[in-house]
């Protein structure tokens, strides 16, 4: 059903071949891990899926719909939400407002409704607030609703990004290094949270460096190196794969 399907994706930046023939799927109920050394092209995969970058070859399909010609907000409306490796919250807005923005694509009322405060606008506004508070509660951020995003601690900002993505009511969520910069306790919490997100029936594709997190929750793993997919499979297969070990060890030796 809500399958995200990449087939033979290639991306070039001038002379740099960032991705070469990348193909994989995120299926209903999946938690897929995307791993690889720095600069391997993981974030680029996210940017291709969400419509920030155009591919030079290949197709991304969601539910069978090709995403190629769609602008990012349309792709989001189809049900693919994401978080960012470098946190990109709306810094001068409160936590609640950040999440309320995410309801934009699920709501309709326009200028006239807002200026005249029509009953439909009031109802919708109430619903937006309700859903947003639920998303905050889900991420355990209820007490920070009125806090300015820029005043929140780093770990909370990471959670707020996930809350914001959830408030778009996605069917698939892309998490770009959600555990980066978190302490071990926070990481454990995050693993638990990702499990709960999956239980909501949301498919997950995540980039993560923390192998404990990746091996702990992903059912399927894709490994990238220099823009090329070098392995794909179950966590225990990946751990034993000689090319993966080489890519990681080789990287460490540099």
């Amino acid at each position: 059903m809500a399958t995200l399907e990449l087939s033979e994706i290639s991306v070039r930046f001038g002379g740099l071949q960032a991705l070469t023939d990348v193909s994989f799927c995120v299926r209903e109920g999946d938690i897929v891990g995307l791993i690889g050394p720095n600069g391997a092209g993981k974030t680029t995969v996210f940017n291709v899926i969400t419509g920030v970058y155009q591919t030079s070859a290949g197709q991304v399909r969601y539910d069978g719909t090709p995403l190629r010609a769609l602008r990012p907000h349309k792709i989001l409306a189809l049900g693919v939400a994401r978080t960012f490796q470098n946190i990109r919250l709306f810094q001068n807005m409160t936590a609640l407002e950040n999440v309320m923005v995410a309801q934009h694509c699920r709501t309709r009322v326009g200028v006239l409704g807002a200026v005249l405060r029509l009953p439909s606008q009031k109802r919708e506004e109430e619903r937006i607030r309700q859903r947003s508070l639920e998303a905050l509660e889900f991420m355990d951020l209820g007490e920070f609703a009125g806090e300015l995003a820029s005043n929140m601690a780093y770990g909370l900002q990471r959670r707020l990004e996930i809350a914001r993505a959830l408030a778009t009511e996605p069917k698939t969520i892309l998490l770009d290094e959600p555990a980066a910069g978190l302490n071990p306790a926070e990481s454990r919490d995050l693993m638990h949270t990702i499990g709960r997100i999956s239980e909501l029936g949301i498919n997950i594709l995540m980039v993560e460096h923390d192998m404990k997190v990746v091996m702990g929750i992903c059912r399927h793993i894709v490994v990238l190196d220099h823009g090329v997919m070098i392995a794909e499979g179950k966590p225990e297969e990946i751990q034993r794969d000689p090319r993966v070990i080489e890519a990681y060890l080789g990287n460490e030796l540099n």
Partner: protein
Amino acid sequence: MTIRVSKLWFGYALAMAWFYVLLWPLLGIKADGLEFGASFAIWSKVAVASAILLGLYQLKKVGAFGFVERPAKVVGKAAGAVAARVPTWVALALVAAVAVAFPFFTERYAHDVAISVLVYIILGLGLNVVVGLAGLLDLGYIAFFGVGAYTYALLSVHFGLSFWLCLPIAGGFAAIAGCIIGYPTLRMRGDYLAIVTLGFGEIVRIVINNWMSLTNGPNGILGIKAPGIYWWNGKGFEHMLLNSLEQLYYIILALAVFTIVAVYRLNHSRIGRAFEAVREDQTAAELMGVDTLRIKLLAYALGAVFGGLAGTFFAARMKFVSPESFTFIESAMVLSMVVLGGMGSIPGVILGAVTLIALPEVFRGFELYRMFVFGGVMAGMMIFRPKGLWPAKRMGARSEERE
């Protein structure tokens, strides 16, 4: 201590030297030779005045004024506590009462200034949608004021359409102009946006200036009608033009109130949040489902509507329009109000308009040096209160408050 004091006076000497270097060429270089007397006279007055102020400041630092300051602080604190208790609606009702009663205890000249202030409040709030909320710099905003003014002028003179009918028409034309100007700039950011909007503002003025057959060019359009209403005179309805300053004051007051309510409600709606998201991080906003191109176009169009409404009133009040009223300096003035008052803050923009229009009137006595003082105040403000006189409140209260 002594080191800091001497540093302060060194700074003072430096500032005064700089001031003289600035002042003398303005006053001292004449066609028939150089002159030092006039500039020195002014300079010495300023120097003595600032020396006294600096001295007082130092005494205050040392604590010589403790005997006044301490009680003043107590009184201030008590007043603050009382003010915090007063509900917002009481404060608003008070302001409204003063605004409604204003013409009864003032005279013509004050009415005139108040009307200007209210026109600029509408302009400031309109530009605030574009600059303060959506974060798009617009240096040609006054063009929409011009479009509104000329729309009413032409429809009134050639077709005799009424002011009230022309208000929405002019708003609509201004919105279309906003889209035309906004569209090509949608993919631009920062500096480029500033230059292009500046260019468009000038284009509108130059077109008005040169389209003789339609706009009568630099000579302008005369004979625009004031707003009219139907009045019950006992026997039947009679048409009456609202010509007097008091009547015009109430019309523009109503328009300003409408603008304030509309902008406030927009600000607290899904559209307003989308504007702010675009200002904060356009890419993230797009990726979170906001159609950023459409939202930016909407910001231009909405800002333009308020400009158009203000322009319609301006034409009706002056009964004459000419391209001279829509120069770049007017755009700069409106932008200054928004920045000075506090970007994104409704009370801030109102305060900015009052400050920039009413204060120069108070300082009429200075006449020649008015712009000089104006520049100084602006520079000082940006140094000491860079977020504006009344910065937008963002500490949670905004989204938490319920009505």
